[in-house]
């Protein structure tokens, strides 16, 4: 099957790809931040997406809270949950070998997913779309959903906020220092745990924002919804250079574009869509393991 490759079709796919890429980017930023500071692949990061979606869903549907309050509440609660996960599961094993931390992260991820299954049930719930995000603009033959524009805006704003926090504030300086050399940072009298908690809060809040935007695009909330986006966000973070926030967002955009264009060019391959990011990851590891914007990390 061939698809006419005219300009408007290409532009249309570009819009879809950018939207998906922004969602990956939002998730990847948090992944990258936590990895940069702790050298820990936080497997539970994708599940925070799911948790935030449930928070927002319950806020709007069960408690009938207006959506802006519900969204902000969801972001806050997810940030708190991120801090709690760090305190409860990761802090006690900070000094143990890396493999133990990874196993704990898997455990946390599974606990969140299955708690969701037990407490809420596995049936997908339909996420309500606020009126603000409905509709779309038609430019020529290209249909630009309002949601796509909002997603892009939210991503850009949050990226700038994160970049400013990391580059310009004192706590951001501590984060960057921590990712360089944890022992020296402790000698400088910086409360390491406070900085790490802050990193988790910021990363989780980003995941929550990504989760809410994700649910408005794919409105089926279920306990295992975060697994695949989480995996791809990690690939995006590696692609951009892990530990680098701008790189993570860029990696997300590239991954989203590649995925959408891959299916657009050859619709028969749509079954292999989830495999693309994995092969991309292998290619990056072989050619440029530090990613696009990454610098070599001290081991």
């Amino acid at each position, binding site marked *: 099957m061939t698809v006419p490759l005219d300009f408007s079709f290409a532009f249309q796919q570009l819009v879809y790809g950018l939207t998906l890429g922004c969602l990956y980017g939002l998730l990847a930023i948090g992944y990258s931040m936590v990895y940069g500071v702790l050298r820990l692949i936080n497997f539970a990061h994708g599940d925070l997406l799911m948790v935030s979606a449930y928070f927002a869903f319950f806020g709007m549907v069960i408690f009938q809270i207006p959506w802006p309050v519900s969204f902000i509440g969801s972001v806050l609660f997810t940030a708190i949950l991120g801090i709690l996960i760090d305190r409860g599961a990761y802090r006690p094993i900070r000094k143990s070998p890396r493999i133990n931390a990874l*196993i*704990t992260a898997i455990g946390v991820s*599974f*606990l969140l997913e299955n708690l969701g299954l*037990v407490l809420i049930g596995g049936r997908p719930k339909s996420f309500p779309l606020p009126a603000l995000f409905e509709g779309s603009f038609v430019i020529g033959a290209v249909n630009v959903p309002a949601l796509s524009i909002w997603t892009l805006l939210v991503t850009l704003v949050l990226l700038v906020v994160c970049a400013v926090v990391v580059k310009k504030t004192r706590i951001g300086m501590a984060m960057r220092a921590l990712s360089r050399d944890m022992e020296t940072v402790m000698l400088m009298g910086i409360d390491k745990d406070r900085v790490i908690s802050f990193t988790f809060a910021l990363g989780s809040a980003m995941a929550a924002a990504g989760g809410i935007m994700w649910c408005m695009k794919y409105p089926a909330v279920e306990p295992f919804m975060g697994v695949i986006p989480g995996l791809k966000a990690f690939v995006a973070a590696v692609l951009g250079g892990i530990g680098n926030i701008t790189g993570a967002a860029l990696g997300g955009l590239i991954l989203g574009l590649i995925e959408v264009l891959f299916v657009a060019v050859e619709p028969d391959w749509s*079954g292999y869509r989830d495999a693309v990011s*994995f*092969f991309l990851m292998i290619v990056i590891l072989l050619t440029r*393991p530090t990613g696009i914007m990454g610098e070599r990390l001290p081991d």
Partner: protein
Amino acid sequence: MSSQRIFRKDFNSTTKIRNKVLTLLSVIVLLGFLFYADRNLDAYSVRILQNIAIFIILAVSYNLINGIMGQFSLAPNAFLAIGAYTSAIFTLSPEEKLRSFIIEPMIWPLSQISLPFSLSLLIAGIVTAFVALLMAAPVFRVRGDYLAIVTLGFGEVVQVLANNLVSLTNGSLGLKGLYPFTNLWWAWGVCIFTVFCTVRLVNSSYGRAMKAVREDEMAAEAMGINAFRIKTFTFAFSAFFQGVAGGLLAHLITTISPSLFTFMFTFNLLIIIVIGGLGSITGSILAAILITWGGEALRVFEEPSTFFGFHYEGIPGMRMVIFSAILIVVMIFARGGIMGRYEFTWDGLFHWFKRKLLILGI
């Protein structure tokens, strides 16, 4: 590093022979028990025994990567799937293949081949090891951490491939009508062989190199160990046995489909090796028995039941909540699991007996 070093000095040829005889005797006792089980136990218990054997194979070979070499792989479900599919494709008869491939016929040479079970297991192991080799080469060239994500992604990819390569795997319909070749003897035979090979490997210079890589890769490199080579080799070695286990599993349940080999499988194995003690073969074996048995027992939580007049609707997923909570708790409070990094040795047992006797004043 276990008790072996402590007792190195009274290692002489008689104790060595004694240990070998004792090991042989316990294998004979095990075989005797299997003989008894085969004759007298009901189908459900035999099935659990077979599951235990397959899980021991998987856990011991998985522990080699995660525990003994300290690299975090999440690929067992992928290797299991590859092994299961490979062996199933080779044992199915041409007629059966013609009958079950209803979406697309199977590709030509494979559609006509039908091999004996033993040969198909061997091919399953070799194919799986080869895939592991292909995957390890890019991953181990860079930081070890990436292995976790790459292997996790690989598991997803194997499922995607199994669903989409319809002329090879029959897509989401899966392969049906496999002959139930796997019996107690096959399962436990492969299991004993796996444990034997793994123990020999761990006690060889390769095993010491693996432990060196786990403890400090840079120092190991400085001592002349080629870390990349040892990692790749061990990965392929472990994948071989996981592939064989996949073949055994496929011919035990006789129907395989892509949805069977989810990440859940890897998670169960992770629990087993963590509870047994990362880096202990004996621990993995004990935990495989414990968890396979316990997993059956924990089914109570997922089925409706009534105790003390209180009706309890079974909650699906409760077992996994319990398992993941156990995993986190073990990691935080009892990192060593049952055995830590210690192994069961006959010398250790005798020493323990002697000490007990001394305490009793005999």
